[in-house]
């Protein structure tokens, strides 16, 4: 089968829908808050009451233009909204306000880096704004459905790629980078599980070398990275199987079954949709002036690639560290906060900060499954720890213990007093005689290892250092420990 698969090449385009972070909804003053009790963020406008009219929340346009700049798009000077007409109980007006013929942003691109170190450019066809629908709840009662209109009218950004994607890996990288950019621009929180970011994939396959595209199918509403990868793989496989068995792929909307990792066609009756798009007469044209564009350009944050490069120059970080830190905007902000709090901006102390955030902070975030914004130790406190290590007051080992102690702090003041106490408790011992007594104690307690060391197992030095540091609760100055350990092992 693998040889069969390798004859084919997939052609993939992604449509990414993300909820835009705004205080209020797209066309009314209701809150766009995610976690509210059902039908609490509603008003006559978003409920589609007779006689009501939409009024554009201009923050949407700001967001769209920011994303347009980030994805190298041309920004249309005058664009209009359109109505997409269809009936569904969670669509209060019987149409969705969206953009059709004139999206605000068009003809952009995004460069992604692949595993093989190559860079690939993916075209961005268009970016536009639209409103979300409400949520139908079918499983609450047996004989009736309920509708929650809190989501109805919440603003969405839709980013449509060219069919330039040629593998699941590329799709994954493209989606990750779009998500990262949305988070950097603070347009979206990137939370796929809560549904604030979702993706439709258009997929076709063709024989390698073939110029024409095959017939595509669309998989709707993929809501995790894993589902995107698995669904694309499954659909490619399905289409190749159809072709190999002599059949033709028929255009269809597919749904993905995450349990079985298969795709299947939705009932084709629903697909007889004709959305009867036409210009939305209740809203005026959106005119983006040069001044408006300039204002947005000036307020754009630094994008991940540029920030990574800057960190390498400004902080002398190696690429791997810099790349890791700048993946997440807020994580990088945290790092910079910690660096800015350092007493000494020495390269070494910055490296200590980098090590603490990448190892200790990251570990806690993973353990607690939280984002950096929910993390309790402020960046400033990390600078204090790093300063202390840099000044030789505490060892790296001790700094990890201090970090763990601070995790229990509830406020910044409490953490500072915890830090001061821990720093003095764990302050590094540089007194040779005191350290030497520990060294001798450890050697006495481990005669077998001493014999093996002397027999040539030099790597046991690490074992002794570990024991000595443990014995001194990490307080012994490692440099002196090394000196004294070698002296005693070699001369005994």
């Amino acid at each position: 089968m693998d040889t069969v698969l390798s004859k084919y090449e997939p052609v993939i385009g992604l449509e990414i829908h993300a909820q835009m972070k705004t205080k209020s909804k797209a066309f009314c003053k209701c809150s766009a808050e995610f976690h509210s009790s059902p039908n609490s963020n509603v008003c006559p406008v978003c409920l589609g009451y007779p006689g009501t009219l939409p009024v554009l929340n201009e923050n949407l346009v700001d967001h769209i233009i920011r994303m347009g700049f980030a994805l190298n798009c041309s920004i249309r000077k005058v664009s209009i909204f359109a109505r997409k007409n269809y009936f569904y109980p969670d669509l209060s007006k019987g149409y969705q306000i969206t953009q059709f013929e004139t999206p605000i942003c068009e003809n952009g691109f995004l460069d992604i880096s692949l595993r093989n170190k190559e860079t690939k450019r993916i075209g961005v066809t268009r970016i536009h704004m639209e409103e979300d629908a409400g949520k139908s709840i079918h499983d609450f009662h047996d004989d009736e459905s309920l509708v929650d209109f809190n989501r109805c009218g919440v603003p969405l950004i839709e980013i449509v790629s060219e069919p330039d994607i040629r593998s699941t890996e590329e799709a994954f990288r493209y989606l990750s980078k779009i998500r990262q950019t949305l988070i950097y621009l603070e347009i979206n929180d990137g939370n796929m599980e809560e549904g604030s970011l979702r993706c439709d994939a258009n997929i076709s396959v063709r024989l390698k070398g073939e110029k024409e595209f095959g017939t595509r199918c669309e998989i709707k509403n993929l809501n995790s990275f894993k589902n995107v990868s698995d669904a694309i793989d499954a659909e490619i496989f399905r289409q190749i199987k159809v072709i190999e068995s002599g059949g033709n792929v028929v255009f269809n909307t597919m749904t993905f079954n995450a349990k079985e990792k298969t795709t299947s066609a939705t009932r084709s009756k629903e697909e007889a949709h004709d959305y009867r798009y036409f210009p939305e007469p209740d809203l005026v044209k959106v005119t983006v002036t040069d001044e408006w564009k300039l204002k947005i350009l000036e307020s754009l944050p630094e994008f991940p690639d540029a920030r990574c490069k800057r960190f390498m120059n400004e902080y002398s970080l190696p690429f791997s560290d810099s790349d890791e830190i700048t993946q997440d905007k807020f994580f990088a902000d945290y790092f910079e906060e910690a660096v800015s709090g350092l007493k000494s901006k020495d390269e070494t102390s910055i490296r200590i900060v980098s090590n603490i955030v990448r190892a200790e902070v990251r570990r806690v975030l993973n353990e607690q499954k939280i984002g950096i914004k929910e993390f309790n130790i402020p960046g400033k406190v990390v600078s204090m720890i790093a300063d202390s290590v840099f000044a030789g007051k505490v060892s790296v080992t001790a700094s990890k213990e201090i970090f763990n102690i601070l995790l229990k702090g509830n406020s910044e003041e409490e953490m500072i007093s915890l830090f001061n106490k821990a720093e003095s408790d764990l302050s590094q011992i540089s007194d040779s005689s005191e350290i030497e007594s520990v060294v001798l104690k450890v050697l006495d307690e481990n005669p077998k290892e001493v014999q093996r060391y002397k027999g040539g197992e030099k790597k046991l030095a690490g074992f002794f250092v570990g024991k000595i540091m443990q014995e001194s609760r990490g307080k012994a100055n490692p440099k002196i420990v090394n000196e004294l350990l070698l002296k005693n092992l070699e001369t005994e």
Partner: protein
Amino acid sequence: MKKIPPGLKEIQKDLSLKNITCVDLVKNYLENINERKDLNVFISVFENEALARAAEIDAKLKSGKAGKLAGAVISVKDVISVKDKKLTCGSKILSGFETLYNATVIERLLSEDAIIIGKVNCDEFAMGSSNENSFFGPVKNPIDTTRVPGGSSGGSAASVAAKMCLLSLGSETGGSIRQPASFCGITGLKATYGRISRFGLVAFASSFDSIGIFGNNNYDIAALLKVISGHDSSDSTSSDISVPDYTELSEQKFKPEDIKIGFASEYFEEGLDPDIKKGVLEKIDSLKGKGFQVEEISLPHTKYVIQSYYILTSAEASSNLSRFDGVRYGYRSENSQTMEEMYVNSRSEGFGDEVKRRIMLGTYVLSAGYYDAYYRKAQKVRRLIMNDFENAFGKVDFIISPTTPNTAFRLGEKIEDPLSMYLNDIYTASVNLAGIPAISIPCGIDRNGLPFGIQIMGKKFDEPGLLKIWNNITE
């Protein structure tokens, strides 16, 4: 019963002289409403509320704190939202529906102490030219009860003509104010698109709809217009051009030598009733006699008005009326097993024939494959019609025409023939396509004693001009 003067100015004078009270006014109108129930004008009468408000305003008048519209008792076409009241749009589909908010025009009227006496009948969702397409039955013309009052704002026109109120708020998409004003022998003003907020007006065709005013004279209409005009942050299509003092302007008239009036032969062709033609031409001659310059102009795309009007308004209506689905409010059919059946049955049972006809037409012209041939082409025609007017208004200040090709026809006469009904909009719909203001002023009476109006069309935002020329026309 005390005698009620016919105009707001005289009413306000009598109020200040304490010859009458607002309560007297409301009682008088209520009596007329009750006496002429046969006309089927009102859908809801706010009897107790209007009397209570009248008493409040009388108290305000005593303390000198009453608003500009104290003494103005107004009926409202039942497509405009009045908080906590039934809003029917003349349709079964809104059975039992009470709205939650005031339209912007209602807020503004109430803040100046106007009294709303009730909601008046109209064609269902303002679709019609005879007021026969109402779920609540047809309105009869007060001048001849065998005839229609015009539509869609037939209830509004009849309520003013039958002295059930002083003024009425109507709405129009293609002539629904001017045509019934003409049929009922009163004045009706349609303002520039964007002059009056549409927030709270149930949409028929959003890019055409405007709220307008029925009254006995230009001063009354001006007083109301001044209060309800102006930008509204709830309607982004409302204009922020400043609102002039219409009331003061309505008391002025033009020096004939300053004004050029355009005469378009396209409005006097075949299909125009000879009595109306004669009456309007005589009026034009009398204006010439007074020294007005009358110039022949051309509106070459007039022959495409009705087609493009019905394509575009039906397209917008098909979408605007999608929200009436029985899910959140209004009528829901009882006999449905599935979601789809609920939609189909609720809408089939809830909408009347004319509304269904337009939804089907609009759905068709927006469908993939037909969009370019119909909707897009009609949009282009609309642009050409706008250009016609722009060119004409480069040469003249006003354009004069009959309001309607015929006077009030008999109930039932045209209801089975939608095309001949649609032709009733032939002189009025172009104004809505172009978004300009126009007024219908009583002009004369035909061989059957039925009134007809003369229509004056103006440049965008030249409502002051229309209110002023009213004086020249009626003197």
